């Protein structure tokens, strides 16, 4: 598959604050690519650079084999000529125009004949599930409906690429779930390339073909498909970002690995490579809790009944971890612990990280 967007050596700063430096990304035609990272990491800046609302200080951006921005030569194509569809975080639906007028606008700018505009717009309105609402004003629509108008408007002129900047963060949880699958369905239906920007790792996992993780300093930490990123994180930052994570400090003494400053050896294969100090990382679902050994002996620090799940905070010597069991599993297997009770921990999966990385993330 060829690359439809190429970002080469791009840098962008505001005053003293350098947001992006030396950034290289290539997005393939037809894929759903997500840029995932914490707020302020620069992912929105990158989308704005690709859209043309900002100009890179350094580097080159190429869309569909055309150079749209090049700091070296001064080339720059303004946003209105880049032929992209874009959905903003606040939808940016124009309050003084009806649903129809909003969606028709890109076609109006292309000076298409009235008949054609009418046809295309009404079809798009149906595709996004807004049939019958074409004459409404945005103030009469719910958040989710405004979202759909924004999507329709971005798609109607048949762009080669669609950019979405955190489109779901203003929706409530249920709607967020529904819309993310709808966006994915639209992408497959129209076969367009989607560049999706978000801080929500669940959304990224659910819809992406590939995703890139950015850290707060604007550096890409890992690019890959969702499964790879989740199962084989490049470093602790990626691991922590992709979901709730536990970390146990590990002390090495004479080739053996002990939990914290206690005497218990961690029941897992030791790390490979060198580091001054190690940290064992694992997810709550990687923990198995038992009434008896073998395993790490721990004490229940807190037991929370949350309805469908039991949530446990467990102390192992001077370290602690969190795990969850489904309530019905706990009931059926005598795993309803109380505060203060003893328990034994084994693991289903474990990642080793350099302890320095944990420090970096906790800053």
């Amino acid at each position: 598959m060829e690359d439809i967007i190429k970002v080469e050596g791009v840098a962008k700063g505001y005053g003293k604050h350098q947001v992006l430096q030396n950034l290289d990304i290539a997005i393939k035609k037809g894929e759903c690519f997500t840029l995932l990272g914490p707020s302020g990491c620069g992912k929105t800046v990158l989308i704005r650079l690709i859209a043309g609302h900002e100009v890179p200080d350094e580097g080159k951006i190429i869309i569909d084999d055309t150079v749209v921005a090049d700091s070296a030569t001064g080339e720059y194509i303004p946003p209105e000529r880049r032929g992209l569809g874009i959905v903003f975080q606040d939808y940016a639906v124009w309050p003084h125009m009806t649903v129809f007028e909003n969606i028709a606008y890109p076609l109006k700018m292309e000076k298409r004949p009235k008949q054609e505009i009418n046809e295309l717009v009404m079809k798009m309105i149906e595709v996004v599930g807004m049939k019958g609402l074409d004459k409404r004003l945005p103030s009469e629509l719910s958040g989710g409906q405004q979202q759909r108008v924004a999507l329709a408007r971005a798609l109607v002129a048949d762009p080669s690429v669609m950019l979405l900047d955190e489109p779901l963060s203003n929706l409530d949880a249920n709607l967020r779930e529904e819309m993310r699958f709808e966006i994915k369905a639209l992408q497959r239906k129209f076969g367009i390339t989607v560049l999706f920007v978000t801080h929500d790792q669940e959304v990224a996992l659910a819809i992406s073909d590939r995703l890139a993780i950015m850290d707060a300093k604007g550096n890409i930490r890992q690019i890959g498909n969702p499964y790879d990123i989740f199962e084989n994180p490049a470093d602790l930052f990626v691991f922590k970002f992709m979901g709730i994570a536990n970390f146990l400090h590990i002390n090495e003494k004479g080739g053996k690995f002990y939990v914290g400053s206690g005497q218990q050896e961690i029941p897992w294969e030791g790390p490979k490579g060198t580091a001054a100090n190690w940290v064992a990382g694992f997810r709550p679902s990687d923990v198995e809790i038992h009434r008896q050994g073998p395993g790490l002996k721990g004490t229940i620090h807190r037991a929370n009944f949350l309805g469908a799940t039991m949530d446990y905070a467990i102390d192992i010597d001077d370290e602690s971890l969190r795990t969850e069991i489904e309530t019905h599993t706990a009931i059926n297997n005598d795993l309803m612990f109380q505060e203060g009770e003893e328990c034994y921990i084994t693991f289903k999966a474990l990642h080793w990280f350099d302890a320095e990385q944990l420090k970096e993330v906790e800053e």
Partner: protein
Amino acid sequence: MAGGTIKKDSGFGIAQVILFISIAILVIFVAWPVLLILFNAFFVDGKFNSVDFYNVLTEPETFQALINSLIIASMTTIGSTIVGTFFAWLVTRTDLPYKTFMKSLFLVPFMLPSFIGALAWKMLLSPHSGYINKWFMAAFNTTEPIFDIYTYHGISCVEVMYLFPFVFIQVCGALERMDPTLEESARISGAGLFTITRKITIPLVMPSIMSGALLIMLYSMAHFGTVAVLGIEQGIYNIPTLIYEKIHESAGSFASIRTGTVLATVLIVSAACIIWAQQKVLSKGHYQIIGGKSFRPMELKLRGLRYPLLFFCLAYIGFTILLPTVIIFMVGGVETYGLPLTWENLSLDNYKYILFEYDVTRDAIFNSVTLGLAAAFITMFAGVMISYVIVKMKVRGKGILEFLGMLPFSVPGSVIALGVILAWSGQFGINLYNTVWIILVSYIARYMAFSLKANSAALEQVHDSLMEASRSCGASMWQSLKDIVIPLVRPGMVSAFFLIFLPALRELTVSIMLYAPTTRTIGVAIYTLNEDGETVMSTALAGIALIIIVLGQMLINHLTKKASE
């Protein structure tokens, strides 16, 4: 996708041109006149001289005017604060009947220009010929009037009557916006209503009270009309009236201008201090409701006092609004002042004369309306452009614009008028003195700040993403402005227009300093006719002015209501 190569922003493009024009407008119309005043006040014969400044200030006449300004402003401020806070509390925190109606009723005094009110009160309470005093003296067989309006407290009372809505509005807003759980938590802690009001409600609302009070102080110090009508006869001058008197009686002599600029400087400094204090006070107090549940705040049950207090409020409005208005229309209907106000003596003759025959008044009405329209249009468009630069454009140097834009915020009218005289009377090439243009120029300076505020607020509502979205849809910058920004900003522009047109129509303080025989405004005509002894004509014109103002206000209310639907 259409290819193309456009050069990145070069150093000097259309953005810079607009920035330059905007700065030029603000400098020429606003900053320059004010600077000239300061310059004139401190520089004698081109040399800096603060001793002379001090001497002028300590001349008995000027010093007295300063003291008077302070006394009157203080009395007015205290009075307005008490009245405004009391009514605001009544209307938001008690079970007074017909509260919503009363709330709008208390805003009516805003519509009456206080100098017209002063004229009415003069006719009612001047010590020997005022109608109320005449009746009182006859009824009780005495030569002592019940109240002499030509006094400090007379002036203050009149100002309080028409200024208290400033405090009223601020305190109403604060009380309504306040999070009711702040009072509820005091209640559940064991506090009764009296304790809550004293220890919680009032301290929390104090910033708004102070803010309103400071605004009134500023307004009163800078106000010409009431003191001119009620004070000059007794020799009570404040700063604006003294400036006017000096310049007027000496026909613009050098010494009088000097005195004028010194006094104006005092006004500028006072205004600056008050605005600074007001900003500080407001920035400390933000106790607003955090969305969500809307339970009403605590209400005091007035029980037996409900209807008596309602009656009191209505009587207050009746006394301060209805009575003067009735007097104005009645006196405007008699042939000569002093005639008893009976049905036989009343007619519409004066009104017809003023509207259709008397050139002084006809011209005045025409002048005011055209000046108002011109000033409103010009400031509206200039304001949009300048606000756009400040709010939306990313150009270097727009900080200057923000600073200049804040300047005129309450530079008092007399100061603007004097500065405009200094700037546009021929010293720098253009001489507009004694023409209608000099009044227009000063109106632009005076009201630019209001236009900037209204338009900036409207522009801030138009989020950047709305324009970016249109650009990504294929619209160029200009197309986006036309299709997206202008339609959304139109309501702000319209409100800016009316925010300027109505006050310009009825104002007096500025035009009194700049008028020539043929360039009178309505306010000037009312005042000068009164000075010349043409009491009934003056009053009749005042009546017409009131009708125009009320009609205009109703039109605005109707339009803004339609816009918000």
